[in-house]
């Protein structure tokens, strides 16, 4: 075998190795989703979505945990969005580059990697006990907001960094103040990136289970929450609850609920991708 042939062989080998590695994740996902679809698809109908939970598998619906998840999602978005975007803008535009800001930066990056159950414990202590909100939707949303704050802050900063400095220069040179420049130029130009970060963070929040269990979300709630101080359950907890039961009927219910949950996160990720593409086009 000549050297050229050897190199070509190595090239081919690595190519197939790469294809194999790429496929592992994909194949596993397909098997998983396939299994769930077989188990759960027949269970999904309008009644499954609008029914309250029941002791009988075939009569059970996901209305209360679905509404719990929606409540959590909306409240978390309302709480986390302004706080984290403001923090991101401050760190990127106002904070002087010194040791303190470097320390803050490292801390926020690290916070994004803290296990979610730790946030659950923090939420339990601060929101449930000290602020005595109880095991309410609000306490859950505040806890999840803490969890996703660092993610959105990091995304906001990246998006702001990507705004060309020439746009800032142009705004300042026309006599704009710092705030006018940020509000009229920097934020609109980075809104796609910020929105992408927010949506991805929220889709993570929708799937979170551990911190909410710690905060005191229930596995069984008879009614959907009607206010921020009501008790609640969320889809992942309902799924966990159903899947741990012996009857096949509940296993099927769990599969069906997983399909709904996946659908929600896929749609949210899709929206995020849409915004990102639109934003990239706009800046070029």
């Amino acid at each position, binding site marked *: 075998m000549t050297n050229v042939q050897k190199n070509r062989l190595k090239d081919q080998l690595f190519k197939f190795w790469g294809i194999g590695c790429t496929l592992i994740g994909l194949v596993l996902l397909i098997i998983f989703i396939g299994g769930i679809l077989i188990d759960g698809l027949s269970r999904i109908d309008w009644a499954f979505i609008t029914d309250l939970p029941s002791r009988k598998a075939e009569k059970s619906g996901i209305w209360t945990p679905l509404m719990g998840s929606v409540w959590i999602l909306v409240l978390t978005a309302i709480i986390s969005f302004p706080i984290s975007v403001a923090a991101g803008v401050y760190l990127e535009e106002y904070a002087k*580059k010194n040791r303190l800001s470097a320390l803050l930066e490292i801390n926020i990056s690290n916070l994004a990697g803290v296990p979610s159950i730790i946030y659950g414990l923090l939420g339990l202590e601060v929101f449930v006990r000290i602020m005595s909100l109880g095991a309410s939707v609000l306490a859950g949303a505040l806890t999840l907001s803490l969890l996703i704050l660092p993610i959105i802050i990091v995304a906001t900063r990246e998006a702001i960094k990507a705004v*060309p400095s*020439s*746009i800032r*220069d*142009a*705004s*300042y*040179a*026309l*006599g*704009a*103040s710092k705030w*006018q420049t940020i509000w*009229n*130029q920097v934020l*609109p*130009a980075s809104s796609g990136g910020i929105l992408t970060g927010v949506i991805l963070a929220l889709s993570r929040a929708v799937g979170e289970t551990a911190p909410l269990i710690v905060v005191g979300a229930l596995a069984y709630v008879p009614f959907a929450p009607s206010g921020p101080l009501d008790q609640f359950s969320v889809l992942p907890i309902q799924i966990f609850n159903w899947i741990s039961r012996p009857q096949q009927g509940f296993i099927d219910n769990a599969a069906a609920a997983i399909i709904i949950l996946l659908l929600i996160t896929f749609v949210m990720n899709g929206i995020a991708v849409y915004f990102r593409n639109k934003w990239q086009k*706009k*800046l*070029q």
Partner: protein
Amino acid sequence: MNVIMTENTENLNTEDKIAEKYKLQTKDVNVFYGDFQAIKEVSMNIKPNSITAFIGPSGCGKSTFLRLFNRMNDYIEDFKMEGKIKIDDTNIYKNKIQLEQLRKQVGMVFQKPNPFPKSIFENVAYGLKIQGIKDKKLIAARVEKALVQADLWNEVKDNLNKSALTLSGGQQQRLCIARTLAVEPSILLMDEPTSALDPISTAKIEELIHQLKKEYTIIIVTHNMQQAARISDYTAFFYMGELIEFDKTKKIFTNPDKKRTENYITGRFG
């Protein structure tokens, strides 16, 4: 009554004469970036309604010097400035000076066209809107006037709501000029405004600069010696942060006093 009137007019006239003499004065200006001295003891006076070209090799400090006049260097970390810069007899580096006011008076056009990712109209209207002007008719009138002045109106009047990014490079640069003119400054700073453009767009902008001279005091940084010779009344040659020579353009290009200026002009270095 009559006496007072004449006195007043006389006063006005003399003040006018002083103000008219020099639009912009700098005295013993030094600029430091940390330990590096970018500008060394530069003093120059610039007359109103004149075009002054700053020439010199890359890194000679001409852009830094230009950016002093609207204080755009303030954003650079470790930037330090000594000396005096006066515009219309006001020291613009006094603490009390408002940057927003200064920049309304001293407009700037950058090297690369940098329109905002917004509509053509919004680009030109931006400088007015941030001043708090809300009168839509007034804004529309000023936008049109600025676009006419920048010789762009006929090309864009039917597409004012189109994104500014759809324009060609030359059109974008004229849009940036229009955007600056809409604020009605009295001084125009141009930092190599044609270096990213093709010859036809460049010619258009040069002609435009020539027309604008009637109403504005223009300072232009350029790498293109022919451009400096073509359009400017005065030329300043910078080298290593020093102002080597500053005189009428004709003199600089035909009979410079300093050997270094002559070497640079004739292409022996730089």
